[in-house]
Every structure is written in structure tokens, then in C-alpha cells.
């Protein structure tokens, strides 16, 4: 094909600004693909593209509302992800010395910047203990809306399972890792 028909050449002739924009987009797409960093609006699609093994045991996070286990797949994919991911972050913070797991990344990414800016970036990116303290109440309200009923008790347990002949079997008794009892009003 004649170079004049090439996409980037035609784009350059039409608009220098758009050409630069597309060129930058291509550059960062290649960079993030190489680094395997997911950054919006670039798309690094490498999920389900690696070899996987089935672990011998897994642990599930189970939500018990008023004593009954919440059926997670009955929720929408988004609701399920929101509940599980936010709780996992909260639980990680609570059990791992109450520090934000992004701290080393912030330190690494800002290491060449002046101290004043480093502190400012850390304040904006990292969560403080006060941010985390308000989470249980938010979770309670979120679950109340999804559950369509008042919640008297919310209990979150870790349930260990093992794979026997590719079937999941509960191993031991679940361990309660979070409990919230709503006071009577």
C-alpha cells in the first residue's frame, strides 16, 4: 500500500493535534502492555491467558444477614464485586498493621519529587484510619438496600474449603471475622 494511504499519514495531514493524540495513545498502550499496568483508558487484556492450577484449599468470605447466609450469585455482578472487594480491603487494613497497602507504591512513584509534594501525594492517595473507620456503617447501609429488609445482625465469616475430586468440601467450622449488631431504636 502506498504510504499516503497509511492511517497515520492521513491523520497527520488532516489534523496535527489528533495525530499527536493518537500517537500518544499508541505509545502508552504499548508501554502499559509491556509493564502490564492497567490504566484507563488503555486496555491491557491478559486475563484468562495464563496457565492456572486448582489450589488444594480456598477460603471464601461469607456474609450472614440475620443469621442467614447471603446468596452472593443472586446479586448483580457489580454488587457482589463491590461488597467483596471493599470488605477484603477493609479486612486487609484491619489485620495488616492498619496501613494502606499502596504506601510502598506511593513512596516508589514519588521518590524523585521534593518532600513537600511527596507528602501531599501520600495524603491524597492513601487512606487514613478515619477513612476506614466509617466503612462498617456504609457496608451496613449498602447491604440493607440490597437485602430490602432491616438488618439486625451482620456477621462475616471465613469459610475454608478443600477440593476433593474437583468438588468443594467445607473443611472446618467457619471463623467469624466481623460482627455488627444493630442497636434497637
Amino acid at each position, binding site marked *: 500500500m502506498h504510504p499516503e494511504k497509511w*492511517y497515520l499519514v*492521513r491523520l497527520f495531514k*488532516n*489534523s496535527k493535534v*489528533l495525530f499527536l493524540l493518537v500517537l500518544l495513545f499508541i505509545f502508552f*498502550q504499548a508501554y502499559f*502492555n509491556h509493564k502490564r*499496568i*492497567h*490504566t*484507563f*483508558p488503555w*486496555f*491491557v*487484556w*491478559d486475563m*484468562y*491467558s*495464563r*496457565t*492456572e*492450577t*486448582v*489450589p488444594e484449599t*480456598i477460603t*471464601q468470605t461469607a456474609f450472614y444477614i440475620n443469621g442467614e447466609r447471603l*446468596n452472593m*450469585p*443472586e446479586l*448483580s*455482578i*457489580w*454488587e457482589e*464485586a*463491590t461488597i467483596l*472487594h*471493599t470488605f*477484603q*480491603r477493609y479486612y486487609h487494613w484491619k489485620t495488616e498493621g492498619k496501613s494502606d497497602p*499502596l504506601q510502598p*507504591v506511593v513512596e516508589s512513584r514519588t521518590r524523585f519529587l521534593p518532600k513537600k509534594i511527596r507528602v501531599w*501525594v501520600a495524603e*491524597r*492517595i492513601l*487512606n487514613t484510619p478515619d*477513612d*476506614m*473507620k*466509617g*466503612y462498617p456503617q*456504609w457496608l451496613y447501609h*449498602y447491604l440493607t*438496600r*440490597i437485602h430490602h429488609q432491616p438488618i439486625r445482625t451482620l456477621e462475616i465469616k471465613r*469459610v475454608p*474449603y478443600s*477440593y476433593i475430586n*474437583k*468438588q*468443594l468440601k467445607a473443611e472446618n467450622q467457619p471463623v467469624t471475622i466481623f460482627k455488627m449488631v444493630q442497636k434497637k431504636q
Partner: protein
Amino acid sequence: MIPNLSIHNRSRWESLLIGYFLVLLVFRIYSSAMLVFAHGQTFHSPDLDYTFWFSHLLGFPDVIIRHYWLCLLVDTGVAGAAVMALFDKKNRAVWMAALMLFFFIQRITLESFSASHTKSIACIFVALFPLCFRKEERFALMMEGARYFLLFILLISAWNKWANGALLSEGNFANMLINQHSDLAVYAPQHISYRIAQWLTETPLFADIAYWLLFLTQASFIIGVFTRRADQWLFIALIAFAITTYLVMRIYNFDLLVLGWVLLYIPKKKVNRLYDNMLN
């Protein structure tokens, strides 16, 4: 025989794309994927994403999530701009720019405070971007760029399956399915996704064949690099891909279909040229 799905009229194609976006928006409301539902969340999770970092440095997600009325305003802005873009054809480019801005603010805030980053949302932005241009030539150039982006992401995904050894690893897809559906195994073994997955894991040969089919569907987009004549078939392949991945793996790939719409638009001039080439 499948009728020709290509659309030659720009306005009609744009209306259909925005219509599909609105259908997905209704699904998002039903799924609680709106800011008003996440209002009041107290901690954010920008992860390693640079755009999320910049957004938190600017501070807008943290301000919005704390105020219910701002959450409602942004959500309404997304729906309102999309509806206006659908009906006000004269000012569509302006409404599209507004939609992209509102949608960007909504997604960054929502995903950061829900600790759930949806990668495929990038496809929606790439698909909507050309609609911000009134001039026919610039619109066409951006559409072409969006089409190349779609081809690229599908091909790179196919390539990763090959290069990482997942494709040739026996029983690998069966393992993926077991890991993917550990929640269904406990909560809902009667779920259609789990029943399909269980059948596949019990017959690993079929699971391997299914994974190869997945790979071949993605790899078939290489045809699009050389010709536009197979575009409507690629669009059908993309629909099949989105439906089967949802059914078998419970993965939501319908955002990818928004970008897939670029495969259906062939401007009149290009159609004439295609026929000219065929005749000569």
C-alpha cells in the same frame, strides 16, 4: 442467509450506538452500578492506575462521593446527556462531549470507591470519542482508529493465550472454570453457568476445545487488518463471544460490544469504492 448488517447512514448508526449505550445504562442502574448507590463510602482504592491517581490528586472523586446531590447530579448528567445526544441530532457532538465528561467522572469515582476496576469501560470511551466530531473526515478518521483499537485488543488477548502457554496447557481451561466458579459451587450449583462449567470440567477435552474456540474467535480478527469485507461477520463473532463468556464464565463483556459497533459503519463513499474494487 444473514442480511447485510452494515449501516451507511452516519446519523442512524450514531442513534443505534447511543441506544445501545442507554440499554447498558438501564442494566447499570438495575445492577446498582451508579454513584447514588455508593454514596458515603469512606475509603478509596485507586490501585496502580495512573488516571485514578491523577483524579484523586485533583480531588473530585472524594468530594463527589461525600455529597448525595453531587452523586445524583453526575448520574443524571450521564443519562441526560445520552438521551439528549439521541434526540438532538443537531448538537449531538456537544452532547457526546458532555456525556464523555460525566461518564468519566462517574466511572472514576464509582470504581475507586467500589474497589472494582472495570477495564473494558475503556472500550466505551474509544467508541464514543468519534461522535464528538462534526466534520465528516475527522469522524471517519477517529472511527478508523477505534476500529484498529478493537482489532488490537482482541488480537493481543489471543496472542497472550498463545505466548503464555495457556493454549497448549492440557486441562488449563477446566482449571480456570473451577477457580472461576468456586462461589457458584457453594451457593448455586444449579446455576446455568455452573452446570455448563461442570460439564466442561468433567470432560477436559471439550474444555480444551472450548478454549481453542475462544482463541480462534479472537484470532479471527486478524482478517480485519487486511479487509473490511468481513466486518459484519466479526461483529457477529463478537456478539457470540460476549454471550458465551457471560454464560460459561459469568464475565461481563457487553461493554466491548459498544466498540464492536464500529464494525457495522461503512460510509457510502467507501461502499462504492468496495464495489468498484470488486468490479475491477
